[in-house]
């Protein structure tokens, strides 16, 4: 296990370096003039040149990358041109919002996807199964941006049940920052009113973000539970007169959870990708929205910073899922080493 971990972490570092090179190179492909933008609209040509010198923008790309990665290793991701702050400060500020949204989506995915998959498998081709199966096809085919807009229209405009976007309402007082998760922080501050508001603001974005993944987790759970149900040892258990409920709980559920973990691991990438669109629709002040703005305004340092950090988190999540997979499934331990 330890050797496996070590090997994974080593290859992870190689991957991160490759990734940063790729991102850095990509973002510098366009012939833009960031120095001019930094210098301000009325700056003279000399001032622009001065800024280019100061930030090494006049050096070859390889050299710029060297300066950049030196900074990153010291915790300096450069400054964002649009927010005019250190990129790291921006990331610290916007990351918790995305993390909270992601966790909320994962909770929805787990709570809806796994049980419905198990139930559907238990009664294959029953009405529940057919309905969910059709529903899952609809869910994976729905463009997230369209679904989000429709939900806003229905739940805010017509029903007036849920807020239209943002993390808190205008009159809410933001709790002191502890975790950056507004739901958690408001509870820590003992402010139930804000907690309720934060939770309500989470509903539409997290549902939009989760929709496609719920369908996929549903299907995976259904498929793997189905194959366990058809396996010889379940048949044997049934023939010994063990109740259907006991079969589901003792044999099917644990076996179906493993593939579900894998799929959730894969879905983290999907959720991070989806957050880009969901955050722009729901004005959710997270990394996704920050990324869209950075790209639109060609904010080099911000793009490189976000991409590296988000991808690093993504890679770490994958590692975590793999480790979890091995931990949950003792049979795998021997094989992975």
């Amino acid at each position: 296990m330890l050797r496996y971990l070590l090997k994974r972490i080593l290859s992870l570092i190689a991957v991160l370096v490759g990734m940063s090179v790729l991102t850095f190179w990509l973002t510098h492909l366009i012939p833009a003039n960031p120095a001019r933008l930094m210098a301000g609209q009325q700056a003279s040509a000399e001032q622009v040149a001065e800024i280019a010198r100061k930030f090494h923008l006049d050096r070859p790309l390889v050299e710029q990358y060297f300066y950049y990665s030196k900074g990153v290793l010291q915790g300096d991701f450069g400054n964002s041109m649009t927010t005019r702050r250190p990129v790291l400060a921006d990331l610290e500020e916007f990351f918790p919002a995305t993390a909270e949204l992601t966790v909320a989506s994962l909770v929805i995915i787990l709570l809806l996807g796994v049980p419905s998959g198990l139930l559907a498998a238990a009664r294959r081709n029953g009405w529940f199964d057919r309905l969910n199966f059709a529903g899952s096809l609809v869910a994976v085919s729905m463009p997230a941006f369209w679904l989000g807009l429709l939900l806003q229209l229905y739940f805010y405009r017509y029903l007036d049940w849920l807020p239209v976007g943002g993390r808190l309402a205008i009159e809410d007082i933001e709790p002191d920052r502890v975790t950056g998760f507004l739901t958690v922080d408001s509870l820590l501050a003992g402010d139930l009113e804000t907690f309720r508001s934060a939770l309500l603001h989470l509903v539409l974005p997290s549902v939009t973000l989760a929709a496609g993944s719920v369908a996929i987790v549903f299907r995976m759970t259904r498929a793997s539970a189905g194959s366990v149900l058809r396996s010889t040892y379940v048949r044997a258990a049934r023939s010994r007169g063990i109740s259907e409920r006991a079969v589901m709980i003792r044999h099917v559920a644990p076996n179906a959870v493993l593939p579900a973990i894998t799929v959730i691991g894969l879905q983290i990438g999907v959720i991070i990708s989806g957050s880009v669109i969901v955050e722009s629709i729901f004005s959710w002040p997270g990394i996704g929205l920050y990324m869209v703005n950075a790209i639109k305004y060609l904010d080099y340092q911000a793009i490189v910073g976000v991409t590296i950090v988000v991808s690093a988190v993504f890679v770490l999540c994958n590692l975590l899922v793999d480790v979890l997979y091995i931990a949950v499934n003792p049979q795998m331990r021997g094989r992975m080493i």
Partner: protein
Amino acid sequence: MSSIAVNRRQTLALLGGVAGGFIVASRPGAANAAKQDTLVVTSCADAVTLDPQSSFDGQSPLIWRGVYENLLAYKGSSQEIVPHLADYEISSDGLLYTFTVKEGIKFTDGEPLDAAAVKFNIERQKAINLGIAFALTPIASMETPDERTVVLKLSAPSDGLLSAFAGMYSVYMISPKAIRDNEKDGDWAQAWLRENMVGTGPYKLRKYVQSQQAVLERNEAYWRGWDGEHIDNVVIRYVKDANSARLLLERGDSDIALFLPDDMVEAMNDEGGVLVTDIPSPVQYCVVLPANVAPMNDVRVRQAIAYSFDYEGLINNMLRGHAKQARGPVPSGFIGFNPQTKQYKRDIPKAKELLAAAGFPDGGFTLKYTYETGYWWKRPVGELLQSSLKELGIGLEIMELSPAAWSGMMSNPETAKLACFGFLWSPTLATPYDYMWSMFDTAAQGAAGYNWGYYSNPEVDKLLAQGTSEPDEAKRMASYAKAQELIAEEAPALFLYEKNYRLPMNRNVEGFVFNGVWFETFDFYSLTKKGA
């Protein structure tokens, strides 16, 4: 089997319970409506910085105006400059400016506003060389003969200098103590002031979260006092999604919505729940044409394009008549406007005739139209231009670019070849010079200004130079008038329209006075909210 059925029912019951909880818990109703002592403004675009001397963006001044003040001010909705924090006097040769600071004005950190503070702020503005700094170049020296008086000596007269102490981009007064205390590596506290504010204004900053919100609260010690009705708190919320901003305003959760697309504002006007202002404004919308490369360096080709554009369709249908066609580079309500300037109307036969005379009877060339992300009005204008040019056989390739890529491309004459671009000019200084120099003076080509059509006419350059340094009002305006005629005749740009200021606001907000020099900002101190 039956046990699974029970489980399922429990699951459904649980889900139902959760959903029901949401329904009950989330009926906000009237409780959400903004309170009467609090003004809520939504902005679809982020503020760039809280430092009022360091940026030229259009979104940050909204906050600045609540906390910081200028020595001078524009009177009501006019371009007349009047004393505010200080009285002023200009010598007859236009070379000596004397400011006398009013007594008893303090910054919110207790520091008094005196002559030294004013001088220090001007020094800072010049040193950081951002924002309005370019307009301060004529200042040769500064003196503070006594505690209340600051004397500026100019190297040459400048008709824009006074504006640099009055408008949206100007030398705002920041507490010198705050600047000195928070200075780091000789940055004049730029890093600190990006997120902190210490001014003399009616409000002070209580809370600021980048891209989310700014909260201002009453400055109890404000020098003009709090008699009469005023707003106590101002909340500025950055809501990126225009639909959300619109809904917040329509439901009374906010009072004013900034930076909404035209069509959305018109839709709100139609539905009648919200008040939409309809005030003439000096913001000039145009499409700058590339004027330096063949075939566009032929004045007849540019005129042909000017005759082909469907101004009426744009103004009557797209803007629903809340605009009027511009007449040359200076807006009609602005000082120095010349009503004799030529105006182009759509006339396709004439356009074809001009094009044929220039040697392109069937068009046959392609132009580019570039615009930068974030300016939504530029896309439809480009698409309309594309349709118009099609009738002349001229192609138009539309490109949206990030602001950095856009300015990079356009400020380089090589990459800007044959590229038109949508442009808008709102006045920085109260002089027609401001409108014409940046876009059409030869010296403003490339990185120096915004003459990215690379238009050059020595006659125009000469008239503008005469105008800005001429102390005599009548002679000055005559130069500017001539320059306007020349520019309109040579069509280095399509002067599209002057759009009325259409701001959607809550019906119970009172006291709003629009001044075109101040754009998308408010004098919060003069606003009140009446009970619903």
